[in-house]
């Protein structure tokens, strides 16, 4: 808002010729800088988008066209072999299939994300709106999680899971997430602290218990924050790579997640490029649609955590 005022200032300034001229010149200079800035931004956006465009057009090019010397920004003729291959279930027994992978990913990720979110929200509510002995100590322990990188504990996790028979099953990808995530707790706690205590207290005065106050009052108020966290956690689960490779990669292909299916396609054979691209498109489209629909929540969600976290 203030910026608009600044831009309007020269027009409202007293009509002193000397100053006006100077300001005008500065104004012009600013405009030039603005234009350069816009061009730079546009260039940046193009650089970001070019790989996506290449991914899309290459998925429609026949292997012969892909490997011919001239590269075109539009397929000469649309070849759907890549997609036919992606949707072909006959080869699924060996390397699985993107659609099976997609289904598995949803099957493993959605319940975990939803339950984990609910649990994290409850924890965040307790940390932000309830007063109890040991709250700060408990929160301190949770803080430790943020410092501990997940990769460091992968090996012992693998050992434990293999001893209790979880390797080759989706449990290692599902159960831990259902306990909630520290990052989510921090984010939601931050959001809930912004909700006035009076609202919760009024609910309790009306005879709601703490838990129902969370469920009926706090949850609805925090819907945007919950959506942001849901989408971010879901995307995280969808794109999870190391865990699924380690815990599922050696097992039954019908249990592979999307990322495991894709990673099995990495090969030096350039004749396979079209298939790879088509599979990648199938893998990315749901995610990009979700992103476009929820970008408000994601971008605001991340920004909020940036400022307050």
């Amino acid at each position, binding site marked *: 808002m203030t910026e608009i005022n600044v831009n309007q200032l020269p027009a409202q300034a007293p009509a002193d010729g000397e100053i006006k001229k100077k300001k005008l010149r500065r104004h012009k200079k600013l405009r030039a800088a603005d234009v350069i800035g816009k061009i730079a931004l546009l260039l940046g956006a193009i650089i970001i988008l070019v790989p996506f465009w290449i991914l899309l057009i*290459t998925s429609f090019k026949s292997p012969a066209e892909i490997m011919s010397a001239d590269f075109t920004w539009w397929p000469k003729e649309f070849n759907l072999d890549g997609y036919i291959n992606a949707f072909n279930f006959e080869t699924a027994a060996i390397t699985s299939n993107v659609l099976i992978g997609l289904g598995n990913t949803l099957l493993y990720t959605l319940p975990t994300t939803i339950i984990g979110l609910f649990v994290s929200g409850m924890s965040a509510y307790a940390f932000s709106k309830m*007063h109890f002995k040991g709250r700060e100590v408990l929160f301190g322990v949770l803080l430790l999680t943020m410092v501990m*990188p997940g990769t460091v504990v992968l090996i012992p996790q693998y050992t434990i899971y293999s001893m209790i028979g979880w390797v080759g099953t989706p449990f290692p990808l599902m159960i*831990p997430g259902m306990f909630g995530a520290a990052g989510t707790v921090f984010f939601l706690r931050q959001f809930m602290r912004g909700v006035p205590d009076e609202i919760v207290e009024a609910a309790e005065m009306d005879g709601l218990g703490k838990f129902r106050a969370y469920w009926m009052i706090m949850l609805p108020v925090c819907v945007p924050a919950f959506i942001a966290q849901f989408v971010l956690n879901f995307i995280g689960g969808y794109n999870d*790579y190391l865990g699924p490779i380690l815990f599922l990669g050696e097992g039954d292909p019908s249990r592979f997640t999307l990322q495991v299916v894709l990673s099995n396609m990495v090969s030096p054979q350039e004749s396979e490029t079209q298939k790879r691209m088509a599979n990648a498109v199938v893998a990315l489209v749901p995610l990009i649609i979700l992103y476009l629909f929820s970008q408000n929540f994601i971008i605001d969600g991340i920004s909020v955590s940036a400022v307050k976290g």
Partner: protein
Amino acid sequence: MEHTLCNAQAAAVEERGAPVPGKRMTRSISRRRETALGWAMALPPVIGFLIFTFAPLIISFVMSLNEFSRYSYSLADMTYCGFENYKAIFADPDLWKALGITLLLCLSIPFEIFFGLLIANLLRKPFFGRRVLRVIFFLPNICSIVALAFVWTYMYSPQEYGLFNRILALFGADPLRWTSDAKMFLVCIIVMTIWNVMGYDALMFQAQIGNINQSLYESADLDGANCVQKFFFITVPMATPMIFYLALIGIIGAMQSYARIDAMDIDPYGMGPEDAGLTLVGYMMRAQEEPLAFGGLGISAATSFFLGIIIAVMTVINLKVSKKWVHYND
């Protein structure tokens, strides 16, 4: 610190008010109930952390002090061997090579931060299409690294139809081998990482820059500062907390690099051409995956513990340094 604690306690006592006789019993019961409920509600993530992160961390340390019979993933099959695993990895030139490669991957961070800050600064003022640009810049961040690696591998193709080789051809240069060349492999990974991550940094900076007091820019305008001066003398200093934060999470992320290398590496054996992409996590993973060739679980656990210590040290250094250098807005 102690002062604030005392104040907080004093405030808490005040809030509770002086105990009123008669009401005391019911109050303490409801307080005890609130404590019990509070613990019950707050506890699950803490329990999850203790079971799935903290316990494995302890086990990891125990494992690193033991030798495993090859091909066994059971904790029952280990024998205590003291610090032999650590001695073995520290004597292995591959570990130091992996550490060097991992540190080299951190080179992408200054570029990510610079471009991120630049984008955020250019997006500072509202204009038509700003929202669309924000969405575009953040797009690579939500995409899976394997899918992105497919395109990048294709663009880096050593054949003459690869996009980068075609760009070189425009300038009359000979085609390069890009990811197939051990000397260029890391550069390729770093360039892709910058492309992938700068949008995230830009988004974080936008939030930070939005918080900068606009009057600073206004007074700079009055003093006749140009946009370059404003960028370096207002935006950059005011963004230092975010710069440090992004550097920290960037380093923590880079230290754990594996997925993007695994996905970009078309060589089915090894980690990139001539092991040019062997990171610490790669070193850890191959010891676990191929125990006969690379030493098994004990080595793997020792490596992961070593990695954990490096990350912890870096976190502490960053916190200390940032306390000294960071310019706080408020």
